């Protein structure tokens, strides 16, 4: 029987055309007022869902957290045409009914048309180009590449170099070894976008994109899809024996966002929320990293994978360099990582990856992975991270129904 749920607080802004407020102003106003109306704060929320059509792909929920409080809770960005707001509400309701949350915040927001950015709104189109400060940084021109980089190759390169700064034994070669491994692994995966191995020299000698990541250390763009059918344990027991035999248990399903961090205000912090997600997943599943037989993690760039050895507790703290040097994450090592070829070689159609890695681990746990099968695999972990950010970790087990 599901739990009953109640509206504790609610608010809305006046609806009109706002020339002097941006999307975040509107969202923050409604969110903060709803929290106050309920007599609670963002710190009391266990989950957040934010619906916005125009910027559905723009990490609106995480951007709103920066305006009202970054507490690291799972944030779901949703879009469902005109039903978007109700979808955000449904998401929070489902989370509470599932017992994953006691209290959650649902926000729906929209700013339609080009008006509302601070400065320059509603003016007649100028016949000449004149600098005019706009936006929350009061910028007069695009700043990307002028005052640092904020796009992905550079962001993940900077994240890797920060780890190299803070820990011994990590340099260009260690990052390149990750790519050498994943390209080698992909040779055995017929579903991988690329199935070609490269030597370490070829990886390091490739065209440099953002040091230390060369072209062979960056995931490709491509197309694809993945899907999963999920069933309750109760329903599974009523299904045919073969279905029960091949079913794989989801022992942990965790999502996190960034809690506030100093550095996280200028450069995405891909570490804290990943560490939090991993710790919560191990706790929920009742397993530790030593119990894992294989891991499919988010190697969007080779530098990222190295950090996640540490973030997911696959290696000693600070020991990611030693870990890759020891060949432990190779398919014949003590903890195979990305035997699918990883994002680097298998590919990364953005929306598909978070289910494709579940397909991969499930296939091994069923003993159906053919040439690339990790023998005797019983427990696997999947990990994805989207910049903004959102991190999700799942732990899968071959268990008795």
């Amino acid at each position: 029987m599901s739990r009953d749920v109640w509206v504790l607080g609610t608010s809305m802004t006046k609806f009109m055309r706002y020339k002097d407020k941006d999307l975040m102003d509107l969202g923050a106003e409604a969110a903060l007022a709803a929290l106050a109306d309920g007599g609670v704060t963002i710190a009391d929320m266990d989950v957040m869902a934010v619906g916005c059509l125009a910027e559905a792909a723009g990490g609106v929920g995480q951007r709103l957290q920066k305006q009202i409080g970054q507490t690291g809770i799972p944030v779901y960005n949703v879009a469902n045409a005109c039903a978007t707001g109700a979808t955000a509400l449904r998401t929070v309701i489902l989370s509470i009914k599932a017992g994953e949350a006691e209290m959650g915040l649902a926000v729906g927001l929209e700013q339609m048309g080009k008006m509302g950015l601070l400065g320059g709104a509603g003016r007649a189109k100028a016949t000449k180009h004149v600098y005019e400060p706009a936006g929350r940084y009061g910028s007069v021109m695009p700043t990307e590449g002028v005052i640092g980089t904020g796009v992905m190759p550079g962001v993940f390169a900077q994240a890797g170099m920060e780890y190299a700064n803070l820990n011994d034994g990590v340099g260009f070669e260690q990052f390149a070894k990750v790519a050498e491994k994943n390209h080698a692994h992909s040779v055995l995966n017929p579903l991988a976008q690329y199935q070609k191995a490269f030597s370490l020299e070829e990886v390091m000698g490739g065209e440099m994109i953002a040091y230390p990541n060369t072209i062979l250390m960056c995931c490709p763009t491509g197309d694809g899809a993945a899907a999963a059918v999920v069933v309750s344990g109760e329903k599974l027991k009523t299904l045919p024996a073969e279905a029960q035999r091949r079913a794989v248990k989801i022992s942990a399903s965790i999502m996190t966002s960034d809690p506030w961090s100093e550095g996280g205000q200028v450069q995405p912090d891909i570490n804290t929320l990943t560490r939090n997600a991993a710790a919560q997943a191990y706790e929920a599943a009742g397993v530790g990293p030593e119990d894992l037989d294989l891991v499919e993690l988010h190697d969007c760039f080779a530098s990222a994978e190295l950090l996640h050895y540490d973030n997911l507790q696959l290696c000693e703290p600070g020991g990611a360099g030693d870990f890759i040097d020891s060949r432990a994450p190779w398919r014949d090592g003590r903890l195979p990582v990305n035997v699918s070829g990883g994002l680097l070689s298998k590919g990364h159609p953005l929306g598909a990856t978070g289910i494709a890695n579940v397909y991969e681990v499930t296939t091994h746990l069923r003993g159906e992975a053919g040439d690339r099968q990790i023998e005797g695999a019983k427990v696997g972990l999947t990990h994805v991270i989207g910049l903004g950010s959102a991190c999700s970790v799942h732990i899968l087990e071959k268990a008795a129904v």
Partner: protein
Amino acid sequence: MGKQVPIVDYLVLDDGPPHLVQQRCTSCGAGYFDRRNACARCGALEFESVRIGGDGVIRTFTIVHRAAPNVPTPYISAVVEVAEGVQVKANILGIEPDPAQVHLGMSVRLATFVAGTDDDGTEAIAFGYEPVDA
């Protein structure tokens, strides 16, 4: 000299030597370069503008080779940690964008440069960090 405007409003040109400012939460001291509705750390609503120092060290960097058409490459992007522990993102100026020339922990200092000129002749002034000689 013609008019100059800062590329972003947290670079201040008209109050002594060029410097950066942060909006600091008056309750918990967390700092931000962009306008915020509430403090992301503690939820408080009041901020004060605080000047940050120009000297720092390179906490991390990358050398970008592939960028949008209007951005000359290669260039060094870095996160610089200034004296108070505040982190700033900017380019490293005045050295070759070569891993042999730039290194983690290098001492640097704020510098400015002209990033562009508009149709009125107004210059957009940007900032970066250049190595401090040992």
